[in-house]
């Protein structure tokens, strides 16, 4: 049987923590560990920034204005 390692446990909880789907007890456990552990805290900050970066990186291509006009043209004509 593998010994319990709080950093491994924190790593497993990291994505659900960022997704805000942990229970109150799990969240509190994760936050306590993050407060105490510089190794995991550093990685938590990275993961949070990475998510933000990924979102911004892929959202830089705006919808073409011609497409917007085409979509508006699909509306039902007023009688």
């Amino acid at each position: 049987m593998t010994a319990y390692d709080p950093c491994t446990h924190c790593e497993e909880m990291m994505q659900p923590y960022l997704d805000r789907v942990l229970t109150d007890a799990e969240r509190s456990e994760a936050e306590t560990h993050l407060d105490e552990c510089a190794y995991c805290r550093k990685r938590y900050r990275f993961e949070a920034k990475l998510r933000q970066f990924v979102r911004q990186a892929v959202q830089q291509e705006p919808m073409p204005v011609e497409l917007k006009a085409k979509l508006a043209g699909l509306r039902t004509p007023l009688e």
Partner: protein
Amino acid sequence: MSETTREPDARRLATEARDRVRFEEDALALSDQVYRVARHLVGSREEAEDLMQETYARAFRSWRSFQPGTNLRAWLLRILTNLNIDRGRRQQRTPDTQPLEEGDYFLYNKLEASGDGNDEERVVERLSQNDVVSALSEVPHDFRDVVVLVDIGDFTYADAAQILDIPIGTVMSRLHRGRRILKQAMAESAVGGDES
């Protein structure tokens, strides 16, 4: 037909026209957000544009089936993903079985090990926009759909499950795997393959 019969009919038609106009305006107001997700669900900008037009054409035809007060953006993306599958633009794939890095921290560890700074802000800066976009395109469709909806579209697990018509447990497992594949691809793109 008497005046008294025509009057409620006219009122009903006027109400329906007003509701339809409101629906169309609400749907169009969300088009930028829907496009951002659509753009990364399909392979190219052209495909995304075609799919957007088909989606909006269908949405405007079926507007009565939308329940006011529910999530219109999710409803539009449900139409979009169904059309994407219907048109055979992509096959539903069996989950890929490529081996994955075991830990969730490996991207950080790899970026940190390949540079001199270990400040997490500077570690993220070692990735480029291109690294992310090309890495995302390498994630197999089934996994990418979920990553795009949750991490880019900001949908909940439940919304993503509804949009893709899959159980919530499948959303969670695909998300877990999809994020790992994305990180692996970003690591390769940013610092090259595994030299170890």
